[in-house]
């Protein structure tokens, strides 16, 4: 059907909607990385000595490591010396209210659909906005503080709660974990910190918007979320980035710690600049995300909708250490044009009766290459452990690829691991059926894709579910064939 194909192509070729650059002066360290850079970052942030030492330890270790190349993605070599490792919007003085925030900055958020002041009243979402690397405004803090919840930028937590940082930083992702996490440990700039005390149910969704803005600035976010015994928290992370030609590296680390009976839900909608349709530019999203169910009956749930980035390479994982703990991973990854994704999860079952669920939906269009890579490891003492994995891939167009590389390692006889995967193209008969009933091709595709991803979307908090559906529609518009 030639008409369909051309309609499809127009839809597929839609440009990135969120591409713009904000003019702001920045404090930026000159490009390059050595021990002095690490010390300078630490000094700029006025960090206690234990943290400086930790960064240096990581940096020294990083120097002994080599960049890994095992995933199913291809990228040009990264010059780590050409990256500037710190960039902060210039501060005039300490900000007392939103009015004092640079109006340019506020405009950026407005363009992104995140009007801070409105959101305060309207959505009930506390936003810790990360603009490049330094948090400039934090809302709802007082309300959270009343309940004893600490939700602030990572730098602030370092100043105010060093004991918590010292105890939990690197406890899930050690400084020596992998090449990119180690680099992050040495040079991380800022990020979010959250601590929910014993028995407290966080009353609102916590949210951070990341934006990579400064040219040539790698973003090295560090997020640490701790839910103490019986606590629960839901955290949202959403990203868009301006259009750029150079590839930008994003090597974040997210650590989650759930103590006994605690619950953490971490949701991501990632829509960074994927590069243009020829694969030029775009973000390298090389992120280490890991949660640890430290206490019994704890639960960690990752939900991600990955539509952006030139390369997405991440495996949000759960270490199921406490007995009866539960790990969940729900993912939608979409690759269009020349995008590449190698993503999945790791579920490490250590405790007894631990359970994990993995639902992964991959959509490939254009020349996109989408890989699910996941590890389910059931250790010897994980009696009664249970895993269910489902990976479905949808192919749109004949130039894209969908790959599934699961690793299932079972060392306990009472454990059960199930893995199912399927790959197919978008149903022509389904499209035909919809069109026959007067539904436009575009709507039909959206409906089918949303149906395909429904299992994941229903795990997202309300605010995100709507956004995610739209995002998928925008990113995929018309790439059906």
């Amino acid at each position: 059907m030639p008409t369909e194909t051309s309609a499809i192509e127009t839809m597929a070729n839609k440009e990135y909607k969120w591409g713009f650059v904000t003019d702001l002066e920045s404090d930026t360290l000159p490009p390059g990385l050595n021990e002095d850079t690490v010390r300078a970052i630490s000094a700029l942030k006025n960090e206690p000595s234990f943290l400086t030492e930790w960064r240096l330890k990581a940096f020294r270790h990083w120097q002994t490591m080599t960049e890994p190349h095992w995933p199913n993605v291809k990228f040009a070599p990264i010059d780590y010396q050409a990256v500037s490792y710190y960039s902060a919007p210039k501060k005039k003085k300490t900000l007392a209210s939103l009015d004092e925030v640079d109006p340019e900055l506020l405009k950026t958020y407005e363009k992104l659909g995140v009007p801070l002041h409105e959101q305060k009243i309207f959505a009930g979402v506390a936003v810790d906005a990360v603009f490049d690397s330094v948090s400039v405004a934090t809302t709802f803090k007082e309300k959270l503080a009343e309940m004893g919840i600490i939700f602030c930028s990572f730098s602030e937590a370092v100043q105010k709660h060093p004991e918590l940082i010292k105890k939990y930083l690197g406890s899930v992702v050690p400084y020596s974990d992998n090449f990119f996490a180690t680099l992050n440990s040495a040079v991380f700039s800022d990020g979010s910190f959250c601590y929910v005390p014993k028995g407290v149910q966080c009353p609102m969704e916590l949210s951070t918007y990341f934006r990579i803005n400064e040219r040539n600035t790698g973003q090295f976010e560090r997020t640490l979320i701790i839910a103490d015994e019986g606590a629960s928290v839901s955290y949202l992370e959403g990203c868009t980035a301006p259009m750029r030609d150079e590839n930008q590296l994003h090597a974040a680390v997210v650590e989650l710690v759930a103590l006994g009976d605690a619950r953490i839900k971490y949701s991501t909608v990632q829509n960074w600049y994927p590069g243009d349709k020829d694969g030029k530019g775009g973000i390298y999203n090389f992120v280490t995300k890991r949660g640890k169910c430290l206490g019994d009956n704890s639960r960690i749930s990752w939900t991600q909708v990955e539509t952006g980035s030139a390369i997405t390479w991440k495996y949000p994982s759960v270490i199921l250490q406490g007995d009866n703990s539960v790990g969940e991973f729900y993912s939608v990854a979409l690759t269009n044009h020349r995008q590449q994704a190698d993503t999945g999860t790791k579920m490490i079952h250590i405790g007894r009766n631990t359970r994990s669920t993995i639902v992964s939906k991959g959509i490939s269009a254009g020349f996109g290459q989408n890989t699910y890579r996941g590890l389910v490891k059931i250790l010897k003492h994980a009696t009664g452990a249970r895993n269910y994995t489902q990976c479905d891939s949808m192919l749109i167009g004949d130039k894209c690829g969908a790959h599934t590389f699961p690793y299932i390692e079972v060392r306990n006889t009472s454990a059960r691991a199930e893995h199912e995967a399927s790959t197919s193209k978008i149903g022509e008969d389904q499209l035909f059926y919809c069109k026959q009933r007067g539904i436009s091709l575009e709507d039909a595709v959206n409906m089918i894709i949303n149906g395909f991803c429904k299992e994941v979307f229903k795990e997202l908090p309300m605010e995100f579910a709507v956004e995610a559906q739209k995002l998928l529609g925008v990113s995929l518009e018309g790439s059906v064939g």
Partner: protein
Amino acid sequence: MTQTVQTDQRLKGRTAHTPHIGPHHGHKWLEEFHHAGAAAFEKIGWPSADDEQWRYINITPITQTSFRPAAGPGSAGRGELAGVSLAGRGFYELVFVDGYFSPELSEIGDLARLIEFQCFHDASGDRTDRIRRYLGHELPAMSNGFAALNTAGFSDGIFLYLPAGVAVQKPIHILWFTTRHARPTVVFPRCLISACSGSQATIIQSFASLESDHPPLTNAATEVICGRDSRLELIKLEREAPHAFHVANEAVHVHAGAKFQSLTFNAGALLVRNNMTVHLAEPFGEATLNGLTISSGNQRVDNHTTLDHAAENCPSHELYKSLLAGNATGVFRGKILVRPDAQKTDSKQTSKTMLLSDDAVMNSQPQLEIYANDVKCTHGSTTGPIDEEQLFYLQSRGVSAARARSLLTYAFAGDVLNRIIHPEVRETLSTLTSECLHQLHIESVES
């Protein structure tokens, strides 16, 4: 063959090894073939632990033992073969002792009237040309270190040529038998099968060895060409001695409309590695790969399969099952590769494992790599114990726990056995499976 191998970056930290060059009996082409294999090994060396393909299997017991090829066929009579021979069932049987063809022990019957079969050494004229046309084509020496060593070292090989349109009713059994040796010995079975268009046969390759103080290594290589519309069933029976090492490479080329079906049956050896690659090169070829592994003790069984869909409209089916007891470790890595032009591929892969003891380990890697859009590919993998509810059901009907276990394990394996096309082979393997499972249950009761 000097030890220049060490200069190669990829060989750092690995045991240097000088490939053995097999005899060529005055055939110039064989000599060249062997030397090409040795040269390939010098380039690629042993697979390393960093290699994703070999990460679940530790081959150092092989690389650190100085295996020597058998100098000639050891002494073996019908008595030694009794446990592994299938001649009594009326199958054709071609017996190789320590890699050398033994006409006395073989049961050829009227096979020569139906097909051509030929040891490489005796080949001349047309037959040599045919062998040379196919040998090393599907399984190049560069495939991996073991394939290279086989290419360099085989003492003799068998070529089966099924002329167009011929249907061989009785199964053909090729038995590779390793006798007892006074030092670690390696044999390199090499088999080449060419099934011309419209031909039909069931071929069984058995690998067996006598228990010995110096466990032998079998490094086998099999190449199969399924011509247009041919039907070939290829069964592999691995029944090596308990401490033996067994590595096998099988490569299959499937032409248009041909149907290829395999069964890999692993029952013996301490360390087993099977690489099975099927290349669906032309439209409407079909491949069915089955596997059954019954392991206990400290056995390590690593099954790797690759289904390479290079043409459109090719269905493939795969079912691998493992029963693991004791400290056994199983590995299944099955890749379905769908190349850009292989539209309308319909591929289904299933791997199921039953863990019968707390110390058994299963590593499963079902993989899909898909570059075409109009395809239907699925894989499923499960690992778990015997279903307690099923046990309870049987026991509630008066079946003893032990009997119920044996029934359920047999039923689990039965799925694979039922797929065997040739009825007599199915019967033979069903009996063999029962024996293996019986042994497994005895062992688990004793431990």
